[in-house]
């Protein structure tokens, strides 16, 4: 699971959960992959990302050094190639292979096996 996907994931589907975001990551195994860099895509993705959630996720997998805690610390990020490449690396090239996601409201755990988070719910949870 890439951190981009994690940034979009929520546990809203569980009964009684209103926001369910962001899910906490506890990673056991993290892998780095290669992915082509695209400036326009990265700029548009940054507009969509929830920066706090991304920073927390990056910190929990040990890649928070690359990006600032607040997006407002960077002026004109869409022209800063070095910064965009770092964001691209954190968002698309860091993959959680084994670990767990945890719902912030109910504490329900979703296991990640072979890089695939298991988001299946039991019948009584929906």
């Amino acid at each position, binding site marked *: *699971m890439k951190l*981009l996907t994690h940034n979009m994931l*929520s546990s*809203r589907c569980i009964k009684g959960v209103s926001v369910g975001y962001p899910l906490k990551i506890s990673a056991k195994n993290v892998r780095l992959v290669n992915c082509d860099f695209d400036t326009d*895509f990265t700029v548009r993705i940054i507009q*969509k990302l929830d920066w706090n959630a991304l920073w927390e996720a990056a910190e929990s997998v040990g890649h928070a050094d690359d990006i600032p805690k607040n997006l407002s610390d960077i002026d004109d990020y869409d022209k800063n190639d070095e910064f965009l490449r770092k964001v691209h690396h954190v968002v698309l090239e860091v993959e959680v292979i084994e670990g767990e996601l945890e719902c912030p409201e109910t504490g329900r755990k979703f296991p990640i096996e072979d890089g695939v988070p298991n988001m299946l719910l039991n019948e009584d949870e*929906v």
Partner: protein
Amino acid sequence: MARRPEHLAPPEIFYGVDESRKYTSNSRMIDIQLTMSERAVELMALPEDRHCLLLDLGCGSGLSGSVLEEHGHTWVGVDISKAMLDVARDREVEGDLLLGDLGQGLPFRAGAFDGAISISALQWLCNADKAGHKPAKRLLAFFSSLYASLSRGSRAVLQFYPENNQQTELVMAQATRAGFFGGLVIDFPHSTKAKKVFLVLMTGGAQALPQALGTGASEQEEDQVGYSSERVRGKPQRFQRKGLKNSRDWVQEKKERRRRQGKQTANDSKYSARRRCGKF
């Protein structure tokens, strides 16, 4: 009546190891999946040359995802079958995969994606596989969570095999209740085999539906009842004799019929329906 896979077993069991293997080895299945995915991408009408973040619902072994990759998009796939996702991982697709049940709603936050495609997955939601399953409720949960996770003005294109009219109506009704505009685009409606049903859903207000393949605008006019001030003389068309077998007219008519059904047909030329000379 042909057996439908969704009547045999729930998807997570039907798409086990054996069935999943077919999606890497059976070239006919792969071909059909790829063609339908190409068409779905076309119907999604994304802005040209833009790298988008897309959703693949019921991604299975990631065949439709690889089509998205070819178009230069990043995608996230959701499927309920572990075995299919294993195949996708072995194929080393670039997209990210999630194990999830579409009928429980999509686990994404609002406005996350620029579009969604789904190839042959929706009909599985119309079945109640467990005692607690209510198809109408599951479809609504699916469509409303899909509506929320798409950004405004984007489209979802869902190809599916409706079993009957009631099923199509149920799907359409739940999609409308969830807030979607849109409707069905049926390619090659005259053919049983090439016929493909696409549900094109739009989030940003009512827009014109794209044109289906295999039905030209002129053909649509033919379907309507025409008006003529002159009385038709002679026999009605259905009693007219067909052209003599193997004659040029007969061949022409047969070719027309094949074209209407979307099958591969040789081009017309001055040699059409001519006999070969007797020499070997």
